[in-house]
């Protein structure tokens, strides 16, 4: 098993290097002279030159990349152009809000998706409900769903806050209340994807001979489904749910703006609007790292539950 993990880690290195080089080169792909554009028309040539150096636009790209990567590995991405603060500091302060939302919506979508999937695999009435839910969840974009939830729960009924954020350590009650709407808005589409997958996977497993044997020896339907079938049916779901983490992260970018929450999404959008390249580069690299890690975890988990894959 250790060998398997090490091999997967080694395989991830070239992808990460390629991606980081792509991220580094982003600024050089900007049409025109980004340093001159950022410095504005009233700037002196010295200021433009200084900015050019700050963006690693001078000299040999490969040398500059190695230099940039060396700093990046130590968590040093330079200073944000719009805030003047170290990028790493900005990311650290905004991370918690996004993490909260990400974890909450992952749990929400897992519970709803797997639960509905199990029900739908065995009853046509539930399957109909599940289809209706999935059709709606996939048809209505995440941020539109968020806005509609705001209209109903905040504006009409005034039950839940329209935005805001609190840390779980300082005010758990407010943190939970602020999380409900964004979590539902973000998690619905993921749970729809999971539900379809769980249903298909479970139906397939329920057709197996060993399930017939289990039923024939008089086990209750509950035991057959929950302990015999579900265990095998959930193996592919692990991978799919891990891949959904990337989607959740991308959705969080937009949902954070809908619910005026702080977080990495707001940081990305503000960064792109202000052309704050050091900030954008660091954030994209962070996302790439997370995606690669999540895929790795999915593979390893897959190997853990299914020994055949390790070979």
């Amino acid at each position, binding site marked *: 098993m250790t060998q398997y993990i090490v091999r997967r880690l080694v395989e991830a290195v070239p*992808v990460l290097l*390629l*991606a980081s080089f792509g991220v580094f080169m*982003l600024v050089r*792909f*900007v*049409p025109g002279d980004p340093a001159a554009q950022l410095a504005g028309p009233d700037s002196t040539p010295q200021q433009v030159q200084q900015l050019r150096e700050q963006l690693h636009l001078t000299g040999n790209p490969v040398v500059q990349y190695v230099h940039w990567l060396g700093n990046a590995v130590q968590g040093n991405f330079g200073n944000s152009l719009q805030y003047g603060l170290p990028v790493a500091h900005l990311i650290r302060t905004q991370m918690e809000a996004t993490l909260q939302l990400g974890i909450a919506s992952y749990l929400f979508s897992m519970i709803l998706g797997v639960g509905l999937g199990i029900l739908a695999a065995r009853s046509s009435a539930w399957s109909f409900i599940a289809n209706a839910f999935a*059709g709606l969840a*996939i*048809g*209505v*974009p995440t*941020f*539109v769903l968020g*806005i*509609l939830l*705001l*209209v109903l729960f*905040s*504006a*009409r009924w005034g039950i839940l806050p*329209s935005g805001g954020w609190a840390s779980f350590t300082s005010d758990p009650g407010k943190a939970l209340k602020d999380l409900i709407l964004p979590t539902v808005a973000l998690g619905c589409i993921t749970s729809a994807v999971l539900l379809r997958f769980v249903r298909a996977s479970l139906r397939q497993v329920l057709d197996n001979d060993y399930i017939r044997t289990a039923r024939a020896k008089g086990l209750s339907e509950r035991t057959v489904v929950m302990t015999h079938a579900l265990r095998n049916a959930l193996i592919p779901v692990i991978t799919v749910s891990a891949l959904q983490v*990337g*989607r959740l*992260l*991308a*959705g969080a*970018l*937009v949902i954070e*703006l*809908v619910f005026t929450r702080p977080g990495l999404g707001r940081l*990305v*959008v503000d*960064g*792109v*609007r202000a*052309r704050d*390249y050091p900030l*954008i580069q660091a954030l*994209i690299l962070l*996302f*790439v790292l997370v*995606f*690669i890690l999540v*895929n790795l975890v999915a593979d390893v988990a897959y190997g853990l539950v299914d020994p055949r894959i390790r070979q």
Partner: protein
Amino acid sequence: MTSPAATLDDAWQGVDQRRTSLAGRWLKTFVRSPAAVVSVAILIVLIVVAYAVPPVFGLDPLAQISGARLLQPSSAHLFGTDELGRDLLARCLVGLQLSIQVAIASAVLGGVVGILVGYAAAYMHGIVDSILMRLTDTMLAFPNILMAIVVVAVLGTGVRNVVVALAITNIPLFARIARAAMLSELGQVYVEAARASGCSPVRLIFRHVAPNTLTPLVVQLALAMAFAILGEASLSYLGLGVQPPNPSLGNLLSTGQTYILSGAQYYVLFPAIVLALFLFSLNLLADAINDFADVNRRVR
């Protein structure tokens, strides 16, 4: 025993008949599928309304009517008016026009590039295939919308850059699908026959093989348009796409959202419904094409 000529003649007639009846069968299965009919009907209505209603009724999305700020929907303004006294019906419909144009442009642009990449990868295989597929894999590892944001970060905001961003985001999936379809066709006997009769690679790919790879690509085209509409709306919502005063479904939603709590809930409602309806019917259409293509494959 029949003469060879007679058998050939019979065979030819068989082919010909099958071809004519196949087209008929396509249409018949399509019309019989309620999902296909409903989705096409909704799409046609949306497109006609978006392009015909503003000029016919003289609606101007930018005209500000004094003293008509944030009016509730009424017979004079079916969707109400916005914070500057502009007619929201006009703004919604012009935004819808923009969505349709962005969807078609980016899906076609991304589709053409992606299909060419996919065909090239399948036909040349070996090292070219490996490199191209590693590249598409890396691109696919990114969630779509993040990919589009990255491109906008490089190119800047605005409609043209949004089209480019969404087109680039569409490339890898088209490439994958085109490659898979091409690969499965390249093993067929008719390809060998065409090669043996001295057909050039370009003619072989585009004349003989390409038509047989179209079905999954048409499905993907519908899905790519749905994604492009969602992508444009999201980017404009984030303030990275269409810039005010020009309307887009996305920026109508973001402006409208600020008036939710002050009672102007109709503001976001109409763009949201139009957007959801459009996406819903495109997804339905993609499903329907997929289903009836399956049926035809089975019949064939």
